[in-house]
């Protein structure tokens, strides 16, 4: 219906104003002769051959006319040939020509365009340019293709990657126009969605047209060369103009160094005059680091702002020391604003927020608003919460896990020899981060006798509070996540290990073993001490404890059994009594009763005998300390057990070995440390000699860097965590690391003759981010609303609050009776 109206209207227009229109039309109408002449001159031409004019065609002609101007800039003639006047062979005869426009190039027909694809000026310009630039602008479908292009471009050309929602749009036109201009300088790539977008981190559901700049030239110079070229996303909405200035910004120097005060630094020059400037400061002492920091930030600010590094000690610089950053916006005043930053993210926020606000204004408010979360507050600053949030799209697959409820808890627990239950809260990020590991373990244990289960404590609150009237074998759960090992008719056992799949898996498998295992034959003893009990544990050598007692009723047996119970899952425990025990003791020339610990690391002397204990707690303490390696390699997993000794750390950092020689060198270093311990004897009691292998524990790298302020050559030996203070000492790097000199160095430190190389950080951890002070906001926006009342006011207040009814009545009732006769009497 609508279409009919439009058509009629247009027809009327044509018939009514035909002659007039022909005069004003700028669309060049070529005669057949003109056409052939131009064609043979090799010009590029975009021509439509006109027959009868239908409403759709007349619309197209209007658009064609508009595009003539635009395409002229790119050397394309636009026009029409009227077939009614003179027939052009091959183009005026066939039916299909009526719905096609043709591009001619080099004297030949180059391409025909269906009018459906060239319907308006944007689509005409973009499609024609796309055709012309066929060789220059690549169309990429998959990530692999993109990777290949990146590889090819590395060190040679930067890539401009455009994504357009659909072809023939204004965005498409902008990219093609830019490609026409910059086509020789950059490699242009066009994509229209698919897996490539995913690689770029774009939400595929409703992406808007965007452009990325892939820095492939600098790629090879980057310190960490990944396969991909680093990329910068253009943040402004896509238009020819914005793309143009974006590309120019990409050419701007990453960091410029200046020796003037920010206030006297010029505004950015053409073509960057619309770009904010960010100033950071540098001192001679930390010149390189400052430059690194600035460069890192500049990468992140790329396309948003220009970064200038100001040499603070230059006499022209007058910025007070309290400020460590400044910026200048391009708008109106060119005043420089000074800042004291805690974190460079704040600078980033300054510019990204700006964008956000503008976007916000356009959006409607409402419950169902589809919020884009990109602002300062929207960023999660908790690493665990952030990783859970990133993964929010993937719901965990809970199929391998039994869901426990108040109703099925008891039956589920009685039916299985071992039930491992995870108590979690959905909103607790740690719970949810761990849930993935837990499911992994459940999947690995599928088919075993272990029942892996979970309790959603947001729903089964009475079960988690151990509140049910039924007997619940555990205390109320108040810390999440919580993992309990439940066995029928036994109190629950808390899992107190690392919240990771490896550790939990190992623990569950070990706790399937009896604790203690009753050893009744010699073979059993050998097998206990030498074999890994479960094939699933292959490759893992657990620590073992063995108790030897004269009789089964010896008082020590119950003590040992109790200790064994609490060690269940952590290590293997075995009990040997009677004749067998005596025989074993005799063979190994020792007295009964005895508790022997076999730590997995001990290879030459396989066990240590523990002193007699009077309580299971004491026994446990002995067992735990016997398990500790005297010269441990510190790892993320084991550090806590060594820190708990409370000793100062004599800490050796060794690097990753590249070859056998390196390995041997590292080995020698550790041996030297052993030498230090042995040579030092009693003096070394106060220290824990230990080492970190930076290859296996890369987290140690930043530790070392933070100790000394910079990365020293490896190996490095430091003394830290002294009970007496926060000083950190570094063994002189130029001195050979031999036991005697290390001991002398320790001696000098004790005497206070060594300078500290660094300091431990404060042990107070104030909040990383300031909270949003609503009280302050209220005081600003509604000054009195949050203030305490003053005593006088208060009486009035009470009166008026007391009886609304009376208050509004006493004054108005009479009046309403007279004046407002209808509704309110």
């Amino acid at each position: 219906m609508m279409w009919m109206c439009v058509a009629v209207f247009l027809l009327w227009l044509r018939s009514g104003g035909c002659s007039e229109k022909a005069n004003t039309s700028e669309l060049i109408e070529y005669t057949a002769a003109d056409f052939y002449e131009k064609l043979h001159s090799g010009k590029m031409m975009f021509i439509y051959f006109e027959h009868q004019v239908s409403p759709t065609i007349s619309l197209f002609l209007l658009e064609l006319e508009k595009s003539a101007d635009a395409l002229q800039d790119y050397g394309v003639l636009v026009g029409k040939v009227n077939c009614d006047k003179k027939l052009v062979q091959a183009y005026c005869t066939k039916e299909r020509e009526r719905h096609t426009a043709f591009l001619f190039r080099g004297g030949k027909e180059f391409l025909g365009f269906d009018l459906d694809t060239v319907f308006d000026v944007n689509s005409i310009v973009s499609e024609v340019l796309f055709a012309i630039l066929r060789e220059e602008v690549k169309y990429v479908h998959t990530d692999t293709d993109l990777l290949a292009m990146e590889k090819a471009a590395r060190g040679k050309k930067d890539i401009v990657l455009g994504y357009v929602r659909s072809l023939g749009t204004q965005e498409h036109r902008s990219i093609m126009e830019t490609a026409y201009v910059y086509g020789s300088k950059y490699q242009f790539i066009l994509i229209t969605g698919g897996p490539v977008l995913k690689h770029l981190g774009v939400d595929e559901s409703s992406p808007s047209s965007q452009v990325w700049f892939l820095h492939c030239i600098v790629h090879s110079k980057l310190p960490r060369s990944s396969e991909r070229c680093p990329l910068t996303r253009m943040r402004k909405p896509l238009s020819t103009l914005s793309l143009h200035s974006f590309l120019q910004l990409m050419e701007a120097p990453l960091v410029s160094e200046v020796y003037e005060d920010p206030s006297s630094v010029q505004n950015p020059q053409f073509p960057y005059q619309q770009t904010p400037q960010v100033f950071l400061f540098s001192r001679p002492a930390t010149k390189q680091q400052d430059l690194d920091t600035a460069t890192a930030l500049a990468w992140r600010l790329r396309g948003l702002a220009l970064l200038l590094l100001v040499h603070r000690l230059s006499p022209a610089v007058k910025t007070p020391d309290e400020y460590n950053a400044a910026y200048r916006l391009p708008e109106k005043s060119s005043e420089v604003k000074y800042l004291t930053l805690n974190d460079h993210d704040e600078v980033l926020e300054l510019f990204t927020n700006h964008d956000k606000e503008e976007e916000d204004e356009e959006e409607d408010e409402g419950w169902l608003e589809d919020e884009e979360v990109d602002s300062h507050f929207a960023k999660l600053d908790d690493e665990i919460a952030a990783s859970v949030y990133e993964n929010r799209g993937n719901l965990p697959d809970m199929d391998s896990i039994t869901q426990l409820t108040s109703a099925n808890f008891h039956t589920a627990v009685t039916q299985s020899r071992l039930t491992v239950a995870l108590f979690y809260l959905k909103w607790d990020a740690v719970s949810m981060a761990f849930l993935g590991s837990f499911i992994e373990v459940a999947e690995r244990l599928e088919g075993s006798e272990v029942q892996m289960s979970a309790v959603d404590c947001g729903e089964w609150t009475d079960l988690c509070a151990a509140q049910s009237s039924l007997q619940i074998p555990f205390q109320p759960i108040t810390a999440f996540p919580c993992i309990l090992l439940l066995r029928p008719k036994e109190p629950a056992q808390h899992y107190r290990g690392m919240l990771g799949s490896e550790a939990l898996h190992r623990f569950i498998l070990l706790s399937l073993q009896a604790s203690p295992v009753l050893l009744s034959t010699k073979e059993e003893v050998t097998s206990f001490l030498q074999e890994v009990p479960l094939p699933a544990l292959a490759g893992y050598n657990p620590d073992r404890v063995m108790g030897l007692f004269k009789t089964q009723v010896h008082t020590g047996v119950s003590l040992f059994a109790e200790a064994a119970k609490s060690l269940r899952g952590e290590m293997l425990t075995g009990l040997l009594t009677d004749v067998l025990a005596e025989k074993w003791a005799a063979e190994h020339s020792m007295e009964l009763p005895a508790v022997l610990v076999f730590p997995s690391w001990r290879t030459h002397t396989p066990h240590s005998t523990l002193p007699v204990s009077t309580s299971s707690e004491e026994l446990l303490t002995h067992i735990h300390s016997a398990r500790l390696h005297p010269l441990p390699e510190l790892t993320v997993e084991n550090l806590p057990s060594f820190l708990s000794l409370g000793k100062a750390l004599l800490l050796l950092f060794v690097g990753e070995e590249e070859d056998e020689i390196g390995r041997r060198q590292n080995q020698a270093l550790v041996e030297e440390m052993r030498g230090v311990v042995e040579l030092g004897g009693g003096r070394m009691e106060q220290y824990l000699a230990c080492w970190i292998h930076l290859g296996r524990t890369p987290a140690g790298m930043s530790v070392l860097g933070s100790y000394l302020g910079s990365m020293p050559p490896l190996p490095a030996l430091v003394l830290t965590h002294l009970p007496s203070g926060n000083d950190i000492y570094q063994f002189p790097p130029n001195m050979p690391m031999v036991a005697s000199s290390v001991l002398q160095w320790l001696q000098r430190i004790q005497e206070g003759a060594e300078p500290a190389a660094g300091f431990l950080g404060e042990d107070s951890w104030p909040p990383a981010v300031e909270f949003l002070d609503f009280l302050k906001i209220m005081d600003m926006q509604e000054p009195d609303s949050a203030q305490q009342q003053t005593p006088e006011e208060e009486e009035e207040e009470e009166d008026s609050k007391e009886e609304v009814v009376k208050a509004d009545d006493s004054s108005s009732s009479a009046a309403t009776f007279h004046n407002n006769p209808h509704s309110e009497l």
Partner: protein
Amino acid sequence: MDSNLPCLILFLLIGCVKCSFDNQHDGSRRYGYCVLGAGPAGLQMGYFLSKAKRDYIILERNSGPGSFFNKYPRHRKLISINKIHTGRQNREFNLRHDWNSLLSDNPDLLMKRVSSEFYPPADAFPTYLSMFEKELGLRVRYGVDIGRIRAVQSPRDRSYILTDQHAADYTCSVLLVATGLWVPQKVEFVGSDLVEGYESISTDPEDYKDQAVLILGKGNSAFETAQSILGKASKVHMLSSSPVRLAWQTHYVGDLRAVNNELIDTYQLKSLDGLAEARLDKIGITQRKEQSGRRSGAQKKAKFYLTLKKHIQHQEKKNSSDAPGEEMPGYHIDNFSMRKPYDRVIRCLGFRFNFSVFDSSACPPTSDNAKGRLPSVTPWYEGMNTPGLFVLGTAAHSRDYRSSAGGFVHGFRYTVRAVHRVLEQRYHNNPWPSTKLMMTQLQSWILKRLGEASGPYQMFQVLGDVILLRGSHCEYVEEFTLQALPQFSSVSGHEVSEHGLIVLVMQYGNNKIDFLGRSRAETDWTKAWKSNFLHPVLYYYDTLPSEEDMRLRPTGWPLPRPKAIHHMVEDFLAEWDTPISHIQPLRRFLEHCVQTDLRAFYAESCFRSSLTHRKPPLFCQQGYLKQQGVAHNSQPWQQVHDAGPMPTEQDTGKTSGSNPAFPNYLAQAGASVSSGLKLDF
């Protein structure tokens, strides 16, 4: 307030007396606790006393529990919702939508066992109460009609003596008055004797056929009455001093509920019904016989005219059968809206507390609010001036009259529990139950309470959770009576440390807005303090506020101005658990209160901070250092971090270690780790 000591001594004494006299000495019975009335509040208290194994008795003059509900509401439909299907299995959560059940440990002892209707029939409620009483084995003595209550003050203690219809005495150290409200509220005006009362009107709509009816009052009982006769009466007019207040606008369930508001429709659509405002003590009702007898010879039917007090000439002459025409308002005001006569005038003005049984020694004063219909009580529901006498249930509504749910079962079941905790602390030295939490668990625990707790949700702005900060841990005390916050330590038995405290309250916004209009809801958490609907608010105090602070608190606030406040933005689903809008801002607020970083860290970050600092952040101290570090799990999505040095990637910030790509980067560079990169200036 009385000191606790005498009471304690009293108890010991009572204990002795009890042993030797077996409760039945010379017609007087002695109890630790007497609960007066076996309605919902009385039984609820009975349950808590029985669970604590206290010496108590519930006295009830009728033969069954909840007898009020045998008669009221007159039209036999409860308007408290009985929502059985909530999509949740969480019992605590489900109580948010079950307004009839009482609290108990028995998960099945709920109203839904008696009725499955959303608005249950009134008879279901006494049935439910009776089931509650029987299954929990509560000690109720029926048929005991207490006619007189007096206090006896000895030098050491105070007790209450209750005398029943047979002159038998009950001596109680603590008296819990749960008698409800059942005395009809009346207003005196000229002709008030011509008016029928809600308590005695006919509930058969046929009796109102073609009659013009004037109803005095605009509460739920008035509208319930109007609604039932709407189809029969010729017109229904309603008159009271204030305009109709709609519960969905005021968030006060005592105001007119939508379930009863059909008359608003017929009024606004001009269908003969109407509402009007006037103070009832300014009106008069006069009677005139209709001049119809001449034709039929039948009885002249009396008609009632509404007039104004000031037009009535002979105010003393009350029962005038025929008022002169000059007394008619239409005589004075040409278009007086209610100039036509009525066939009936019905009073539906609610009920008042029965003060008459209290001797002056034991009588709590009337409250300033609620037209003096209620006794005045302390923030912990003890009668003003009557130590040892507590008021429970609807009668205790003066504390939150017209603001919260304390006058209704779904509200006072929680205040009764609070009173019981007060008693346990005061007389038995049992502090309020509390949960000890590690500081790093507090956030999750608060979110847990927000996700399910029914007490603070129903008794918004009246009951709130109190979190006592103790450094690395805290004590979580649930559902404290907020107005008693200045007396927190003595009432709850918990000390407040120098770390201060946080109070968690559910609140509505103070602004009167169009609750169905656009932009009624706030969705931006940074403007959470402008939330209009029920949402959590946290108040942080470094010391307990004083009574003075409490009295002078900002207008419309449940608590005095704190050191810091945090509003959690209202949520359409009332689930305050989204990571960005709810959880992170809450964490930052808690961090501010305890001045400690409360973020969670992976084991690797804890490893770094443990080695570079003397102590790592609290989360690492309470997890990692106890060998319970959080390992990165090996799911593929975790590798997001390793995606390479994209310039667009954002570093998490303060602890340089939070970006695992960092060390690799350095390893490759072989370069120095600069202090500059640490970024903690």
